[in-house]
């Protein structure tokens, strides 16, 4: 991981977003970079000045700079339209070529020639075609050449073309590429996957995966491998938990570090990302690179190489039943997706990438897409777009990888299905992106008829993406956690319409970058919109606990089990089970429980608010009360067995619940104390302003959620059967925080 590619001789357009550069450099833009749209940025961009960037780079790596000079000044005669200033910088499994643009060029061809140990050269091959839609700044063309056998030595040349008319080649640059990562003499670093050993002729089998995984687990203190579940055919589903100097010991402790997640291989016949995950796990486990270790000290990386082990072994898209698991992350009919969702519930990643391969030959190297479902909180969508367009497009332009929006050739893909992980995770308040690896070389990588070349390009482009993801994540932890906190608070407030299916629009990225054909609009139809959200859904005993027929034979799960896997709050009431919308995954609740849902789980009964206006005087709750946008001038008392759900209301008086079946208070203002004593079911307090003490004591149910509240007074939690949690959304408490709430 050490030695990120850096341009030395050229005034590279180091467009670093302001907040990413915070604390490093934040200087006005005097460079000649093309102005790039910064639509999703929330802070003003700061850009390295070209001069400063060059100075810094040379200071940092003088040896490399000298090497570059030696190779690029070899040939001094200049022909008309000849490419000048060609440089090469090595990455992990790729080589970044950069050159000065030629006026009038319509594209460029990249030629690679093998150089043997004795200096003899092989047959030159055109391995790449650079086109203007490849990167966001055409003034600094780059191309990540990949597919070669790592460690081999090559010579590269680049030439411009005017239409079909080829111009003279540049002077050649020669360099040795990086070998498979890791010193063969250093234990741990010397591990290799089956895919690496076979030079891409074979993928890493399940058996080899387990041995490799166990070896990393055993040899690295930074890595703990946990089995999060088993496939239908009983293959273990392992996850690398990686931190520095050691990963936190429990899921709850990991969650407190704002972890990031890579899901590597959901479709068994799309294994390219999985191989990258194995290599990255080894790098993180054994690297000495201080920057990487610093990142691992700030967060925890979760790498899930094989969620679909049965499909990988069978080379099928689906799992062993044929179910496409990426159409099952909301419904979780399958053991694999259930294990995944439970892991998300327990480890609480706040950012994620989901790896795939894509059969469209005309797309970019790395199609990406954010969670678009309209129920996803705006900040999660914006943050995901910032990661993709703000970071990946910019870094891709530096390193030569062509990241682009999924569906950029007009294919009707990338929509709002909540069954797809991209959307499911967005609805779970996770900033995330789809990652596709273009299956074939396509017109821009003409040397991939060789299957091994093709596989290597795909895997090393995925490795680049995941490395960039880690970099982005730790550099933007503050913004990501803020967006997540806002999203959790927003969802818990249960405000605004519900959309059953339909996506946010994604504008075309300004030409020449692809986006001339952006992802399809996918706006919701009128009949897919519910303007007045219910307060909760009520399920009957049969709906909640009844046997189901969906899911693999002998392994079917009930609605109760699935909602528990999602981590949802459910209130047992006299005639059934209430699922309040005012909880962190509110956007997903109706998509499973409403009769109007596109792919629902069960048609629950919509429970409308019972009070939306003003109530003067005391309010006593014995059954179920739901206040939405209400004003109560007087105290509220919830009697034992009663349920109170309050969203966006104002209460002038104490709120006192004793032995409540459920107590949910969100986005509300309370003048007076709030007491939840001896609750039998869920306790949810999110995003409230309370003038007075808050007490959560002796609750019998699952952990109370106490998050994002402003409490003018003390916060006291004692005697609860489970320690209350805040999902890393801090409360602002003017008084002391006692006992079980001391760290909330």
């Amino acid at each position, binding site marked *: 991981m050490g030695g990120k590619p850096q341009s030395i001789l050229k005034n590279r357009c180091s467009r670093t977003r302001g907040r990413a550069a915070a604390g490093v450099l934040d200087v006005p833009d005097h460079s000649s970079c093309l102005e790039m749209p910064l639509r999703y940025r929330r802070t003003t961009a700061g850009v390295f000045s070209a001069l400063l960037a060059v100075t810094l780079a040379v200071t940092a790596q003088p040896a490399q700079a000298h090497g570059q000079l030696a190779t690029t000044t070899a040939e001094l005669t200049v022909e008309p339209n000849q490419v000048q200033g060609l440089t090469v910088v090595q990455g992990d499994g790729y080589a970044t070529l950069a050159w000065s643009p030629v006026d009038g060029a319509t594209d460029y061809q990249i030629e690679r020639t093998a150089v043997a140990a004795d200096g003899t050269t092989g047959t030159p091959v055109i391995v790449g075609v650079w086109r203007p839609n490849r990167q966001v700044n055409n003034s600094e063309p780059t191309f990540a050449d990949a597919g070669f056998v790592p460690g081999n030595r090559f010579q590269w040349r680049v030439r411009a073309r005017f239409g079909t008319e080829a111009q003279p080649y540049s002077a050649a640059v020669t360099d040795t590429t990086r070998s*498979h990562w890791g010193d*063969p003499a250093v234990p741990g670093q*010397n*591990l*290799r*996957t089956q895919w690496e*050993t*076979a*030079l*891409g*002729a*074979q993928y890493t*089998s*399940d*058996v*080899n995966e*387990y*041995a*490799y*995984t*166990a*070896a990393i*687990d*055993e040899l690295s203190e930074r890595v*703990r*491998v*946990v*089995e999060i579940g088993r496939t239908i055919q*009983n*293959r*273990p589903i*392992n996850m690398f938990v990686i931190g520095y100097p050691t990963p936190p010991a429990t899921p709850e402790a990991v969650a407190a570090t704002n972890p990031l997640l890579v899901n590597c291989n959901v479709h068994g*016949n799309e294994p390219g990302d999985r191989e990258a995950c194995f290599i990255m796990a080894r790098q993180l486990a054994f690297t000495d690179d201080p920057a990487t270790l610093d990142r691992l000290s700030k967060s925890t990386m979760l790498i899930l190489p094989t969620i679909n082990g049965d499909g990988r*072994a*069978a*080379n*099928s*898209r*689906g799992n062993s*039943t*044929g179910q*496409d698991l990426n159409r099952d992350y909301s419904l979780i009919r399958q053991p694999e997706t259930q294990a995944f969702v439970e892991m998300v519930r327990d480890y609480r990643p706040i950012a994620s990438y*989901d790896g*795939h391969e*894509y*059969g*469209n030959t005309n797309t970019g190297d790395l199609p990406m*897409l954010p969670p678009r479902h309209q129920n996803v909180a705006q900040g999660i969508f914006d943050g995901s777009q910032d990661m993709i367009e703000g970071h990946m497009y910019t870094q891709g332009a530096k390193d030569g990888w062509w990241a682009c929006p*999924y569906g950029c050739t007009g294919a*009707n*893909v*990338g*929509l709002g299905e909540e069954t*797809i992980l991209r959307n499911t995770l967005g609805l779970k308040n996770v900033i995330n992106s789809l990652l*596709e690896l273009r299956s074939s070389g396509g017109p821009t990588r003409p040397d991939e*008829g*060789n*299957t*091994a070349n093709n*596989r290597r390009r795909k895997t090393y482009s995925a490795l680049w993406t995941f490395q960039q993801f880690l970099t982005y994540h730790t550099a933007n932890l503050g913004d990501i956690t803020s967006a997540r906190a806002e999203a959790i608070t927003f969802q818990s407030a249960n405000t605004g319409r519900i959309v059953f299916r339909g996506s946010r629009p994604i504008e075309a990225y300004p030409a020449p970058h692809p986006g001339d054909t952006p992802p399809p609009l996918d706006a919701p139809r009128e009949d897919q919109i519910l303007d007045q959200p219910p307060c909760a859904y009520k399920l009957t005993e049969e709906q909640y606990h009844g046997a189901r027929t969906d899911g693999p034979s002998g392994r079917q799960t009930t609605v109760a089990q699935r909602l528990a896997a999602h981590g949802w709050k459910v209130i047992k009431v006299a005639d059934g089970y209430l699922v309040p919308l005012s909880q962190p995954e509110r956007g997903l609740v109706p998509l499973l429980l409403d009769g109007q849902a596109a792919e629902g789980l069960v048609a629950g009964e919509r429970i409308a608010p019972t009070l939306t206006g003003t109530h003067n005087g005391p309010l006593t709750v014995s059954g179920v009360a739901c206040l939405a946008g209400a004003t109560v001038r007087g105290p509220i008392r919830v009697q034992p067995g009663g349920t109170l759900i309050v969203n966006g209301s104002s209460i002038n008086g104490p709120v006192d619940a004793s032995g409540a079946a459920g107590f949910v208070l969100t986005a509300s203002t309370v003048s007076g104390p709030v007491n939840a004593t001896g609750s039998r079911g869920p306790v949810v307090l999110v995003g409230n302003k309370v003038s007075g003490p808050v007490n959560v004591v002796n609750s019998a149910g699952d952990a109370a959620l106490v998050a994002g509240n402003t409490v003018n007074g003390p916060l006291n939690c004692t005697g609860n059967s489970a320690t209350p949690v805040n999902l890393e959304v801090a409360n602002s408490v003017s008084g002391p925080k006692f006992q079980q709430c001391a760290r909330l």
Partner: protein
Amino acid sequence: MIDTLPLTATPARRATTLAGAALAVLIAAAGCTGPDSARDGGTPAVAPRAVSVTGSLCDQLPADGEPGSPDSLVGQPADQALGWIPVLTTFEAAVRATGLAEELTPTADVTILAPTDDAFAAKFSRSHLDELLLHDTDTLRGLLRDHLVSGALPVAELVSAGTVTTLAGTDLAVTAHGDGARLDVRGDGDHADAHAETVCADYRAAGARIHVINQVLGTLPTTAGDEDDHPAH
């Protein structure tokens, strides 16, 4: 074998100590790039046989000295050898899914006409392929048997024979095509015009010849050709 899972060997517990042999295959060895596939020969005094494969695709497949080179597959069981030819992932998975490996043992020499992944993708939609691999393995087995011929026949012998019969009973007319062969399904049924050409012929494995071909033979209908060929993420 990829499809056998040692459930007792649960990975990922720090307490477990890796067996030396298991670890050894994982460790990079300087100067040695591939697995030790030569050991199947077992006769160190004999120089490796130079296997000559022919066809337009051969240049794109593992070459001399690389893992999966034609020489390295001589003496390997046929199903193992298939796993080293990188364009045969679908065919290889199909062999495992159907348990056909037993018919590919050296006790009964066999010629394997193995369609490439591209050929399978051009023949079957993705969901149909999943259906064959996961559920309809009887049909898939029948399809594979239409790609097997008794006897380990070099491509030149296939051509000189003029006609061969697959294990499924289909007659194939064989004619020379460049250095390789063209195979035409004989008969007057719906599939009378089905044909394939060898694109890299004359791989040798234990008791087997493997000829990589560019079309799927057999009698199953073509289902490729719509959006399901490349389903969205």
